[in-house]
């Protein structure tokens, strides 16, 4: 224990946790059970006790030691089956705080089995301050998965078919994301399917689905740090394998670079422009034909690079404007860039040859915006501003 603590709420809390750490195991359990019901030092701070405890944990290795001790006590409390044999005066508050604390403490070797038993008993019920206790169990399970047993449950939840644990397809995605990594470093294969289900769930929210799905992708790419070029490739392959909805094209880098020199990917209309103008064949079609893989050299590669840079610049500008973050706006930018890129080709490619290609092969991403089956090619306007404003 430290000799001195700051004379403020943080210092008092830190001292209380340090004093707790030196207690005998049985006393630790009794004290934690009281804390989790808002008694003693944890009382009346305005937040729920689990937040007070988390904020009291020291950083670094001391924090790791404290979390380990917390996990041991949580394991002991869960072993008393608090879902069937009520514990404490404030049962719901105790269970809520216990599970929320478990959710924030990654210790699957201690917590995974007791949490799984709690799930399998299916006795947990009730709510605390309007929050379903089973939602807290979901969070605790997400954060402490010791093996892949819940993969099926996350897929079921993603399809809105889970009948006990509450949650949306987005919750199910986070559950899949926290499945133990494959070989210690790769996301579970279930992640790509759960992303597909989450995308389907977000689909009807035309204006916000793109930024929301991008948030999910960001949580994936930050969870598994790797070279961004590798992530660009992997996301396209994941989308291809799990058949993500077409509008999610706007959420990934559609210009991935593969491992061989000059081997690149691009949206299908760009590929078709390159094929017709530079006589380069498409080597592979991915994601239902939305992404084409080609090996480019010379002028074709120069066109590709210029297109990519221009589109990236437009996209960066678009991201700064809140009202232009939808996938419809993204699609509009692709049109504008395509239209303007035609003059880079010598001799310039006529617009009329591009339009049918685009609308036959790369249907409008937003079903509420336009439809290739209903919209005659002759009616298509390539005025950039009109795309952005719609």
């Amino acid at each position, binding site marked *: 224990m430290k000799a001195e603590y700051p004379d403020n709420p943080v210092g008092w809390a830190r001292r209380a946790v340090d004093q707790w750490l030196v207690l005998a195991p049985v006393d630790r359990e009794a004290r934690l059970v009281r804390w989790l019901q808002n008694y003693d030092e944890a009382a009346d701070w305005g937040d729920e006790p689990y937040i007070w405890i988390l904020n009291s944990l020291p*950083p*670094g*290795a*001391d*924090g*790791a*030691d404290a*979390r*380990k001790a917390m996990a041991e006590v949580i394991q002991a409390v869960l072993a008393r089956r608090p879902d069937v044999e009520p514990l404490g005066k404030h049962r719901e508050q105790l269970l809520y705080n216990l599970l929320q604390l*478990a*959710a*924030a*403490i*990654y*210790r*699957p070797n201690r917590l995974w089995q007791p949490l799984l038993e709690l799930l399998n008993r299916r006795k947990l019920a009730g709510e605390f301050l309007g929050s379903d206790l089973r939602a807290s169990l979901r*969070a*605790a*399970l*997400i*954060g*402490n*998965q010791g093996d892949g047993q819940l993969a099926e449950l996350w897929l079921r939840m993603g399809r809105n078919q889970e009948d006990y644990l509450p949650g949306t397809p987005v919750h199910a995605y*986070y559950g899949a*994301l*926290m499945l*133990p*990594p494959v*070989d*210690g*470093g*790769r*996301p579970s294969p279930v992640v790509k399917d759960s992303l597909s289900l989450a995308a389907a769930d977000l689909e009807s929210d035309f204006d916000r689905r793109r930024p929301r799905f991008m948030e999910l992708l*960001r*949580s994936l790419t*930050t*969870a*598994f*740090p*790797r*070279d961004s070029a590798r992530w660009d490739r992997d996301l396209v392959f994941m989308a291809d394998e799990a058949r993500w909805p077409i509008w999610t094209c706007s959420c990934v880098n559609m210009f991935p670079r593969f491992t061989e020199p000059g081997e690149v990917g691009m949206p299908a209309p760009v590929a078709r422009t390159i094929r017709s103008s530079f006589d380069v064949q498409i080597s592979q079609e991915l994601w239902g034909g939305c992404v084409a893989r080609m090996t480019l050299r010379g002028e074709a590669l120069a066109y590709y690079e210029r297109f990519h840079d221009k589109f990236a610049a437009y996209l960066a500008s678009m991201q700064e404007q809140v009202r232009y973050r939808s996938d419809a706006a993204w699609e509009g930018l692709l049109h504008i860039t395509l239209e303007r890129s035609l003059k880079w080709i010598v001799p310039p490619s006529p617009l009329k040859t591009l339009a049918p290609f685009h609308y036959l092969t790369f249907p409008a991403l937003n079903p509420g915006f336009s439809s290739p089956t209903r919209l005659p090619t002759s009616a298509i306007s390539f005025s950039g501003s009109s795309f952005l404003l719609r």
Partner: protein
Amino acid sequence: MFKIFGRSYPGTHPLEHPLRALLERQAGTGDEDAAVAFNMVDDHRVPGGRERLLLESLGSTDIAATKFKDDFKDFFKSNIRFTQTPDFILPVNAENRVPIRTGFEGDGLQPGLSLVRLLDLSGLVSVYRRYTRHKSGQFTGLERDPAKFPEWLEGKCKAGDAAKEEFIGATLDILNADRKALPYQPVWAALWDEFSPYLSHPAGATRWRQALGLKPQTSPRWYAVLKYTAGEVGSLYRPTQIDADWNCYHAPSAGSAPVWRGGCTMDCRGECMLPLSEYVHQQIDHEPEHWTSAGGRVGLDQMTDTLGFQEQRRRHHELLVSHFGEAARRWRC
């Protein structure tokens, strides 16, 4: 304008004089002190608060070039190496803290992500000698003839699988106890996923050490491989030059790399196609499973680096430029 830690300053910065002296005398010669000086000029990851802690220790006026290196090393020992609360865990280093996910929504490393570290068994002679009476009986007799330590360690590392497992288990046990009384920070870790291809390299432990960018020592050393998860370490940080001591084998990572990518190891062979992510954390308790889950590996590093430091650093710089773009070119070597 002269920069320190990637920042420009009005007037003369207290470190400008000693750094200029190191750079003007030795830049371009492959000199190791000049490389560290370049790192200090360019290491944008050192926050202002940590710079202030450094200056409080070194003094803010008239820092002599000759004393600078020694004072910096003393600062490292007092504020990082031998303390239970190294500067990198303080709030002043918050911008280098790597978030780790929990059961709630948000960003951060997957806590089940595996990390790897090399445990330098040859460097543990003083620890082993402190625990000659350990209950395992593994270290008995070491106090009598310290000169025989290399031979003793070789015997342990070349023993059969069961005996080796007992030895490593006892070693981890004494380290877990020792860290509470005599801290030795920081622990350097890389991502298992990125490092594991090197485990099967024919050069064995020599290649392990080279891939992680550890400076070669003058004599062969035994390493054990430990694998554990990000969720076990408490807090994980992107390293800075201050956490690396006066070590020229460290190099700043590119400014465009997000914090969760950590730092970039400098391959001592100059052959890596991608830099490995590296992190620092405080010493933690290790369990025997951390060694067995890494394949129960112990290997002898022959310290045979042939590339040369200057070429190694040049290649590393080129790798960063190709990987992170031209923005990385301003980092000098």
